[in-house]
């Protein structure tokens, strides 16, 4: 462990000052998260007090004008689309990273990595516009209306692919080279090395990438709003138009009255809770073998 090896230097005054200085940005991140959580809870509390926590989950419909605040279908839609996108993007992302690191010649690998970085930098509204003009009509040709769980899942998978690929790439690169060489020396072919040595060692990094990607998928608003259909209903079919919690907030926040706004913040609270839970799960399971 680094800190134990350098504990002697901790006694130096300069290092103590430096440590205090570095603690500030570290603390800021935590404070920011807590601050945002506190704000969302505060904004959501009027609604929670007047309609309770059950109503958003139990009400049959979403008709804020008539007092029906059923968010369950939207919560389901968010989860289905996000998990679907992850299921699609994870093997592709990890596969792309494995290919780049273990099979591709160096220049090709650099190009591939560059492409992933570019893809990661594209604004979500660009994905949304592309999805609306290309993916939705393509799905519509198969089964109308086109704007659906499937369209949203496809677009979102493309959006989180670079996150997974780049994290997997870093994780695979971090596997100690002598282990890989040792396995090869024992006669294992590359595929077996990947499966039995590299991936188990890279599990932690890949897991972190998956959690990040899932968090982004759950929180994506613009692109999903443009291609998912925005009809509040249960995602009973991949071709069904649905509305996610994020798209709901984006569509209605601008004009919502006080009470309605507060309910939208309850939706925000649900999203926060979901991301927190996912991060916790990812953290627990991501603890792979690490020498």
């Amino acid at each position: 462990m680094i800190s134990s090896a350098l504990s002697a230097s901790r006694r130096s005054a300069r290092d103590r000052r430096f440590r205090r200085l570095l603690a500030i940005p570290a603390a800021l991140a935590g404070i920011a998260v807590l601050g945002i959580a506190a704000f969302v809870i505060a904004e959501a509390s009027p609604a929670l007090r007047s309609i309770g926590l059950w109503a958003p989950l139990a009400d049959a419909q979403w008709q804020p004008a008539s007092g029906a605040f059923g968010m369950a279908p939207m919560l389901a839609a968010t989860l289905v689309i996000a998990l679907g996108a992850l299921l699609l993007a994870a093997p592709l992302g990890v596969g792309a990273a494995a290919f780049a690191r273990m099979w591709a010649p160096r220049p090709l690998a650099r190009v591939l990595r560059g492409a992933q970085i570019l893809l990661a930098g594209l604004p979500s509204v660009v994905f949304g516009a592309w999805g609306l003009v290309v993916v939705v009509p393509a799905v519509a040709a198969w089964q109308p209306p086109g704007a659906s769980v499937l369209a949203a899942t496809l677009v979102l998978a493309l959006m989180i692919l670079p996150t997974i690929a780049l994290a997997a790439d870093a994780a695979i690169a971090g596997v100690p080279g002598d282990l890989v060489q040792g396995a090869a020396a024992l006669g294992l072919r590359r595929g077996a090395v990947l499966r039995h040595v590299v991936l188990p060692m890279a599990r932690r990094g890949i897991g972190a990438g998956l959690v990040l990607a899932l968090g982004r998928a759950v929180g994506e608003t613009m692109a999903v709003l443009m291609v998912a259909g925005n009809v509040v209903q249960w995602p009973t079919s991949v071709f069904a138009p649905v509305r996610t919690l994020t798209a709901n907030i984006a569509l209605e926040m601008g004009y919502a009255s006080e009470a309605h706004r507060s309910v939208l913040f309850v939706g925000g609270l649900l999203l926060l809770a979901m991301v927190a839970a996912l991060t916790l799960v990812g953290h627990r399971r991501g603890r792979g073998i690490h020498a």
Partner: protein
Amino acid sequence: MTLRSLIGGIALLAVGCGSHASTRITVTGSSTVAPLFAEIAKRFEEGRPGVRVDVQTGGSTRGAADVRRGTASLGMMSRGLLASESDLLSWPIALDGLCLIVHGDNDVPSLSADQVRAIYRGEIESWDEVGGPDLPVVVVHKAEGRATLELFLRFFEIDGALVVPDVVVGDNEQGIKTVAGSPGAVGYVSIGAASHYAEQRGGLRLLPFGGVPATTRAVESGRWPLSRELIVVAARDPEGPVRSLVEFARSEEVHDLVRALSFAPFRP
């Protein structure tokens, strides 16, 4: 190196400070009016250095809410004020109509009010029931709070809660692109926005109503039954640059911009 970074830093600060001297006018609201107002704002800024106008969408109701809250100096709305909004001041800047649009390949000649009502209530499933091709109907509806939605429901006497949409869209452009991308789709949008898109890209058909074609000329001559005023609203009497902006938007100087976007100029 240090000298270079010092000069660079001062240059950056200078650029940043330069913008402090300007007035910033925020205008939010209807996505129908926004493209027109953005053009008007651009022309307004041309003769007036130091004035910046920010135009944002979000729906007519958001425009009204924002001017009340004070987050915007002016609001754009594509409907008349409701009784609950009578505390606001309004000025019409153009005329627009609402029409039904279908995919370019859908050759249904027109739809009557009863047929529109039935389609939006989910009672008509296929286009061949109303004289169109054998395609399933895909109903495109607008999200709550949009003036276009409220006008549509009121004119066709449809109860909002009974509408069975297949896709819900946020603004005109999304509605147009959705209909243009789905052969069986039908939606309702501003004639201005739809004409503009059809002229530039095609792939869209504007349905006539009551024998009147869905054109800007029909709106201008008053023959189109589903017309509405595009208005600018404020919470109190505007002063200074905001007042100039409102007067500019109502003047003859912007009539060419209005026509370019396929709206009809408002003549008092």
